[in-house]
């Protein structure tokens, strides 16, 4: 499903006070790819996402999404991308259907909002105010809003957080469906098994750096090869989570050691 390069990030740096949130991150995403970004809290995942969609200006480096600079060409970019973020909200008194129709009216091209409502199980909640929705219902509404403009690239931050198993399955189906239609998906997640199951390639981040970037299969293979335990003594097949834990805890130990030596 891969094609031309649709996102390119080179040497991205962002500092908050003394903390380097992003310390020279580079990667690219091809058209039609499902790209995962995983990492512990504070790894810089959300900062990357915010830079990619133009909510935050990086201190250094270069970003192009669909050939556009997210900060200076934000409007043109926003017409073509869909974003679901963690820290976002709608006015408390807005009703579900109202919100969807309003967002549809903000774009030059929009999909059928009725179909989106039924697809995301929000038909019964059409007339319900945002403030009265449960966490899972809000999440489904935000996913629907991210898709209302029939985007070329979709950015999803913690897609399945707060969703019940049924809605989570629906979200997973969504990603498969988007890939079939050739939509590029960037998925930021804590749920490693989600990235393993859904993404073509996964970037593992910690402390503002990219530790590894490859297909889930190859990341696991490399980890098994490099780890001292190896596949011997392991009671089950290695998962991406094992690779992730080996990499991120290893990195932490290394940093600790270097600090002690100073």
């Amino acid at each position, binding site marked *: 499903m891969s094609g031309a390069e649709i996102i390119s990030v080179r040497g991205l740096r962002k500092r908050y006070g003394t903390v380097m949130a992003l310390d020279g991150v580079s990667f690219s995403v091809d058209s039609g790819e499902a790209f995962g970004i995983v990492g512990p809290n504070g790894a810089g995942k959300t900062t990357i996402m915010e830079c990619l969609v133009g909510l935050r200006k990086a201190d250094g480096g270069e970003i192009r999404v669909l050939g556009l600079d997210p900060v200076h060409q934000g*409007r043109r970019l*926003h017409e073509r991308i869909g974003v679901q*973020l963690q*820290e*976002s*909200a*709608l*006015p408390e008194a807005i009703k579900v259907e109202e919100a969807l129709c309003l967002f549809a009216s903000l774009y030059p091209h929009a999909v059928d909002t009725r179909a989106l409502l039924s697809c995301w199980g929000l038909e019964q909640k059409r007339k319900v*105010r945002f403030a009265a929705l449960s966490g899972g219902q809000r999440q489904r509404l935000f996913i629907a809003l991210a898709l209302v403009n029939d985007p070329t690239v979709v950015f999803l931050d913690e897609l399945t957080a707060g969703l019940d198993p049924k809605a989570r399955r629906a979200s997973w189906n969504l990603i498969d469906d988007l890939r079939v239609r050739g939509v590029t998906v960037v998925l930021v997640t804590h749920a490693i098994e989600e990235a393993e199951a859904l993404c073509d390639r996964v970037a593992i981040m910690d402390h503002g750096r990219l530790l590894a970037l490859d297909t889930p299969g190859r990341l696991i293979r490399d980890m098994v090869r490099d780890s001292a335990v190896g596949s011997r003594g392991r009671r089950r097949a290695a998962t991406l989570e094992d690779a992730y834990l080996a990499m991120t805890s290893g990195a932490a130990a290394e940093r600790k050691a270097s600090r002690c030596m100073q």
Partner: protein
Amino acid sequence: MHAMMSLAWVELKLSLRNVIGTFFTCVSPVLMILLFGAMYGNAPNDSAGGLGAMDEALPGYVVALVIGSAAFMGLPIELVSRRQSGVLRRFRLTPLPAWAALLSLVAVNLVVCICATAVLIGTGAAAWRTRLPSSLLLLVPSFLLCAGSQFSIGLLISSALRSTKAALAVGMALFYPMMFLSGGTIPIEYLPASLRVITPFLPMSWAVRLLGGVWQGSGWDALSTGILALVLAVCGAGAALLARRE
């Protein structure tokens, strides 16, 4: 344009659903003038050119109670709570420019203020036969300048503050002194000299003066126009500058 219209329509519905805000801007001014009217009455007063107490006071009530509550309470609290909760963030991810979102909220607040003013005029006329504004042609632009200058102060507060609690505190700290000391609700002559000193430093007092003059037909006051235009320019530019830094 389609986007702006649908946004403005939704904003209007949201503002009507906001029971507390609607009460402060539309209902409480009516209750207040019923109270003041019962106290002062509207008997013609020769020293005021035949105007009654309510005739004289009505434009001040419009500025202090209607425009003031929207500018210092309604608008900042709504904007800050939207920023705090992530509503503005969500809208920034659409092609809608940030100024358009702000403009539609300000426009809707203005519409609500115009309606509340009409209700006050109607209440005054029905209860005490207060006179109608002398010139509608002058009333509209002077009303817009009064509302615009006070709203710009509200916008400056909103862009400087990060939490809804802070917006509420600062809004009240500005609103109540202005309401009582600007001549909007209590005639300046009733204030002790020590308090009267403060009045000219309150931007609202110049709005009371401008709207009052136009309303009573005594003409367009140049000094208050200049001061209100300056307030609008400085606070508007300050709010825009702070918004850009985000």
